[in-house]
């Protein structure tokens, strides 16, 4: 049992999709990262501005540090309306001057002496962004470092990050879809030669074992080469097989001739009446066997000739007349009216004399062995622009429903019907090799059954 292999197309599509998804995930992560830093930058500026303004508002009055928080600082932060603001001012002593005393109580403010420090923190269960700025106070009674801490919840930042990321995602998705579509098209396009090759092979006549001629792309050439090589070997095998059949049939002939000689020598006067019946049956069967052996040989021969002999300009009337004389034994039943008629003295067709004669001989013998009661007529003429040999007999004929079966190549009808099938098989092979066909004319109450061999006429302007 052959394991089901996924198609090349789905293999490629799956891999490309995986790579595209991975790339898209990377790009979306990057977009999110950049979005967040952009949002942070924007809002950090505002936060720093507000903190610096607060730090600037620190003043010493009466030897005490006071802060008059400017309205503008809060307005600046009001640009993020949904966020809450927490602040804490720390005096030189490290005591909270004003604001939320528990805001970031644990951090080391001294790091902010060089430059403002930003950090992410959490205040009262909400993530916040925190900035610490410092201010040096150098009034004699109150000298030292004061600090301003301003924290802001991150709703606006997240919103901005999401907005930036969302747009980037849309772009990435669009690009990925385009890439996927392009891949599918490209894959389909590059798989086309394979499909073409497949169709070419499946459309082929099973008899045709000549190499495939197809302009295949470089990648397919080894494959095509293997197929052609295989067909070549198959062809050789078929040829060997045909030769074997021909040889075997030929070797059967000699003992068969001897057998019929022995039957002929039986002195019928010395045989009992019952034995006489047996002798007659043996004679009939031997003749049948002879006919079959001959047909096997000619079948192998016409197939061989079909592939090796070129069609020449030949006279179908002459061929049919010779076939007629060969096929009708002198000892034919005298009650059968046997006749041959040609509509014109000569009829030129493109053909192989030997094969055509063999086909016509077999059609006539078929009619004689299985059809004729009192009539057998062979007629050569032109029908609808093609040459036609018509063999008519007054026998039961072949019913129309069996016609397609009879003209199938390598088809023999039931064994009980004798050698009809093989004879037709020969005729069909020859007709096919000549670009023609075997047809029939139905038996009607006022018309006899006919078999028709039709092939094209000789075209004088052939090259």
């Amino acid at each position, binding site marked *: 049992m052959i394991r089901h292999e996924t198609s090349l197309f789905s293999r490629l599509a799956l891999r490309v999709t995986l790579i595209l998804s991975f790339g898209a995930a990377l790009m979306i992560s990057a977009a999110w990262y950049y979005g967040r830093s952009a949002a942070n930058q924007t809002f950090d500026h505002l936060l720093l501005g507000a903190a610096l303004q607060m730090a600037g508002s620190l003043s010493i009055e009466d030897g005490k540090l006071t802060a008059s928080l400017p309205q503008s600082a809060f307005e600046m932060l009001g640009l993020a309306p949904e966020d809450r603001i927490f602040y804490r001012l720390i005096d030189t002593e490290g005591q909270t001057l004003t604001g939320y005393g528990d805001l970031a109580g644990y951090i080391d403010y001294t790091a902010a002496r060089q430059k403002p420090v930003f950090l992410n923190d959490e205040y009262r269960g909400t993530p916040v962004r925190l900035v610490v700025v410092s201010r040096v106070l150098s009034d004699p009674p109150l000298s030292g470092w004061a600090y301003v801490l301003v924290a802001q919840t991150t709703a606006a930042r997240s919103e901005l990050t999401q907005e930036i990321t969302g747009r980037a995602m849309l772009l990435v998705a669009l690009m990925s879809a385009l890439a996927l579509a392009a891949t599918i098209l490209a894959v389909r396009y590059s798989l086309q030669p394979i499909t073409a090759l497949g169709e070419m092979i499946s459309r082929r006549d099973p008899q045709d074992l000549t190499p495939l001629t197809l302009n295949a792309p470089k990648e397919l050439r080894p494959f095509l080469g293997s197929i052609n090589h295989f067909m070549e070997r198959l062809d050789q095998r078929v040829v060997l097989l045909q030769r074997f059949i021909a040889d075997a049939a030929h070797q059967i002939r*000699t003992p068969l001739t001897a*057998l019929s000689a022995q039957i*002929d020598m039986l002195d019928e006067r010395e045989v009992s009446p019952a034995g006489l019946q047996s002798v007659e049956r043996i004679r009939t069967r031997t003749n049948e066997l*002879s006919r079959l052996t001959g047909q096997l040989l*000619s079948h192998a021969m016409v197939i061989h000739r079909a592939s090796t002999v070129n069609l020449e300009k030949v006279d179908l009337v002459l061929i049919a007349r010779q076939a007629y004389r060969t096929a009708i034994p*002198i*000892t034919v039943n005298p009650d059968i009216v046997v006749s*041959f*008629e040609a509509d014109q003295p000569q009829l030129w067709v493109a053909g192989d004399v030997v094969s055509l004669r063999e086909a016509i001989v077999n059609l006539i013998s078929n009619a004689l062995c299985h059809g004729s009661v009192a009539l057998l007529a062979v007629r050569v003429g032109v029908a609808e622009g093609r040459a036609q040999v018509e063999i008519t007999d007054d026998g039961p004929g072949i019913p129309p429903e069996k016609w397609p079966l009879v003209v199938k190549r390598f088809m023999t009808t039931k064994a009980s019907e004798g050698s009809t099938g093989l004879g037709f098989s020969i005729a069909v092979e020859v007709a096919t090799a000549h670009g023609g066909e075997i047809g029939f004319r139905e038996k009607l109450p006022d018309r006899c059954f006919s078999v028709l061999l039709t092939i094209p006429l000789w075209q004088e302007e052939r090259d």
Partner: protein
Amino acid sequence: MRMAVLPDGGSLLYGRGMRILLVEDTRDVGEAIRRRLETTGHVIDWETDGQAAADILDFTDYDLVILDVMLPGLDGFGILKRIRASRKTMPVLILTARSEVEDRVGALDLGADDYLVKPFDFRELEARVRVLLRRRGGDATNVIACGDLILDRQSRSVRVGNREIQLKRREITILEILASRPGRMFSKADLMDQLYGFDETVNSNAIELYVSRLRKKIEGARVRIITHRGIGYQMVPDDTA
């Protein structure tokens, strides 16, 4: 050799007591052919070696040579070539078991008068031998025409218009007799003499059977065979009837 004189002076040979050379190396086949032909009254010389047969043929004439193709010594085609090279016209019948039909065509090209492919029906062989012997004997080369009916006495073929009709030996003989003198009356006894010779006793009903078959086979021709009860038969072209 028995001979019957035709109304127009031609002659028919009945092909008995002829000398036939048979060259066949398969014992059963050779024996059967010899026995069959001897019962019909011919003298058979049977050779199994091709070279020996060719040597005999160099200084002996036969009425017919039956040649197998595959022979020890010299093959059938070789013998045939030698016969024709020495300008002998004796009829040659080739027996071949070779598979290729070209062989049969080749045999005819080499000058064989007829061929049979093995295995063959021995009754058919006997019939062909009879035809070949008669063809040799019958010197009549003329063509008899009566109405649109044409009888070629050389090739023993009969045509009605365009249509060639296959006739049996005795049917042709009767037709030949009737058509050679259109309008003349032939009695049953006349015909019987021509068919069987003078000393054979045949059922006279046979003539009626042959004439009725003949009539059926030339149906559509512009001649008719008219029966005059108690007198005989007469062939009449339609345009003068």
